[in-house]
C-alpha cells in the first residue's frame, strides 16, 4: 500500500489532502457524513478578530463549472473560535489550520497573537479575500505590502505560518518570494479569482460588492499554472488548491510542486469527496508503483 504521509513544517500529515477555508466550516457538519479524521488537515473558515456578519444579498452564483461567492468573511471572531470551535476541532485526529483574515495590520497582529496561544497546528494568513470592501485583498496585490504584513505577523506568530496568496496578485512569483523573504513557512495558493455576474433581466449586478470570488473546476488550469510557477521559485513548501475535484487533479498539483493540497468547492459538489480523493491518490500510486509522494512531487 502506498504511503501517503507527508512531513512538512515540522510535523507529519497523514496524507496531503486538506480541506480549504470557507468550504468546510469548522468540520462539524461534515463529521456527520463521514469520519473527518481521515483528512490530512482542516482549514477553518476565515476568522477575523471581531465577529463579522458578512455580505448582504446574493452570496452564491453558479457559473460554467464554477461558483462565485460573496460570503464576506462571516465568522464568529477569533475569540469565540478559540473558545467554542477549536476544542471541538481538536477532537478530530487531523491537523487544524486556523485561517485568519483582517482589514488592518492591527487586526492581523491581534488575531495572530491570540491564535499563537492555542492548540492550532498552523496559522494560514489569508491576505487574499476578495470579498471584503476595505482591505483583505489589498494586502495580497502588491508584493511590498505583503512583505510588510507578513514580516510583522511573523514576529508575533509562534506557529508555522502559511501565507495564502491571491491569484489577483500583480505578480504571483514575486508575491511568493516576498512572503518567503518575510519569514513565511509555507505558501498556499490560490484563493478565488475576482469575478463578476450580471442579472440582465433586472439590469443589476448580482453581488452587493459588485465583484466576488470565482472557484471550482473552471479555475483549475490557472491555479495549477500558478502553483507550478511558485513551486519553482520558492524553497518553502507550497500548498496547492483551486478547482481540485479528483485524485487526478490532486496529483497534477503534486507533480507541479505542491507538498499539500486543499479541496474547496468540491466539498459542496459531493460532501464526502475528500475520501474519494485520498483513496484515489492511493490507488494511483499503487497502480503506478509509486511508494511515496516524494517520487512524484515537483517532477514537472
Amino acid at each position: 500500500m502506498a504511503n501517503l504521509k507527508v512531513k512538512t513544517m515540522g510535523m507529519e500529515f497523514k496524507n496531503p489532502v486538506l480541506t480549504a477555508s470557507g468550504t468546510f466550516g469548522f468540520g462539524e457538519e461534515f463529521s456527520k457524513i463521514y469520519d473527518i479524521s481521515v483528512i490530512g488537515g482542516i482549514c477553518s473558515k476565515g476568522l477575523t478578530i471581531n465577529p463579522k456578519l458578512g455580505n448582504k444579498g446574493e452570496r452564491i452564483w453558479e457559473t460554467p463549472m464554477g461558483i462565485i461567492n460573496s460570503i464576506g468573511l462571516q465568522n464568529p471572531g477569533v475569540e469565540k473560535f478559540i473558545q467554542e470551535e477549536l476544542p471541538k476541532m481538536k477532537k478530530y485526529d487531523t491537523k487544524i489550520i486556523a485561517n485568519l483574515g483582517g482589514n488592518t495590520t492591527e487586526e492581523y497582529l491581534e488575531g495572530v497573537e491570540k491564535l499563537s496561544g492555542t492548540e492550532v497546528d498552523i496559522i494560514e494568513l489569508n491576505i487574499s479575500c476578495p470579498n471584503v470592501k476595505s482591505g483583505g485583498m489589498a494586502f495580497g496585490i502588491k508584493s511590498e505590502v505583503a512583505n510588510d504584513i507578513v514580516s510583522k505577523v511573523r514576529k508575533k506568530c509562534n506557529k508555522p505560518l502559511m501565507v495564502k496568496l491571491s491569484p489577483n496578485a500583480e505578480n504571483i512569483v514575486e508575491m511568493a518570494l516576498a512572503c518567503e523573504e518575510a519569514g513565511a513557512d509555507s505558501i498556499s495558493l490560490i484563493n478565488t479569482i475576482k469575478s463578476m455576474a450580471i442579472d440582465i433581466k433586472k439590469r443589476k449586478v448580482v453581488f452587493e460588492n459588485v465583484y466576488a470570488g470565482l472557484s471550482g473546476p473552471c479555475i483549475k488550469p490557472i491555479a495549477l499554472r500558478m502553483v507550478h510557477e511558485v513551486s519553482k521559485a520558492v524553497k518553502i513548501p507550497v500548498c496547492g488548491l483551486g478547482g481540485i475535484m479528483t485524485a487526478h487533479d490532486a496529483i497534477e498539483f503534486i507533480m507541479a510542486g505542491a507538498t499539500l493540497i486543499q479541496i474547496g468547492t468540491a466539498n459542496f459538489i459531493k460532501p464526502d469527496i475528500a475520501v474519494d480523493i485520498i483513496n484515489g491518490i492511493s490507488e494511483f500510486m499503487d497502480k503506478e508503483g509509486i511508494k511515496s509522494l516524494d517520487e512524484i512531487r515537483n517532477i514537472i
Partner: protein
Amino acid sequence: MKVQKSKILENKLISNKIYRLTVEFVDEIKPGQFFMLKTLDNSFLLPRPISINDVNDNLITLLYRVEGIGTTVVSRMKKGDEIQVFGPLGNGFDITSLKGKIAVIGGGIGIAPLLYLTKKIGKNSDVFLGYKDSVYIAEEFEKYSNNTIIVTEDGSVGKRGYVTDYVDFEKYDVVVTCGPEIMMNKIIDKCKEKKIKCYVSLERRMACGLGACLGCTVETVNGNMRACKDGPVFSSEELK
C-alpha cells in the same frame, strides 16, 4: 444524512413542467426537509435543493419544476439511471409545535413539500392550494385532509384568484406555508396582525446544503441564520 448514489425508480412528468422523482431511501425523514440532487456527470456543478414531497416505506418522492439547466438535465433522466442524492437536510417542520387548528397554505411548486406534512399532522388541518392554472397532487391532499380548498388564478379549477383571499385567518391557531415570496409575505403580515403562529419554508441559493458555506443567509432577529441548516422552516417571528 448521507450521500448516496440512487437508482431512479420513477421520473415522470405529472403536470405542466412538474416531474415526480422516486428513489429508495431508508433513513428517517421529517416533513419540510430536503435533499440535494446532482447528476453524476458535470452538466451542472452545484447540487440542487429539492424538498421531500412524500415518504412511503423505503421510497421517497420529490417533485420538481423545470426551471433552468439543473432541473432540465434531471428531467431527461430515465428510470434506472443513477443520481446523487444527499440528505435529508434542514430542520423540517416541528410537528409537536403544530397545535390547535392548523391552516396549511401552499402556492405553486411550494405545494409539493406540504403533502408529507399534511399526512403527518392529520385530517384536521385545512389545506389551501394555490395554482396558476395546472392543478397537481390536489387529490393526494384530499386523502389526508378533510378540507382541501383549491384556488387557481384563472379559475379553471376550484375557486378563482389568489389562495390568500380564501383563508379566514381568524379561525386558525397555526399557519404553515410554502410558496412564492409575495404570497408568504402576505401571509406573514396577516398572521402578525392577527397574532397567529406562522411557520414558513424559505428558499435561498445554496452551495453546500449542510451549513458549512454560509451561502444561504436568512436575516433573523437572532442574527444570520442558514436556510439549509437552521431552516428552511422558520417561525415568522424570527424573520426580519
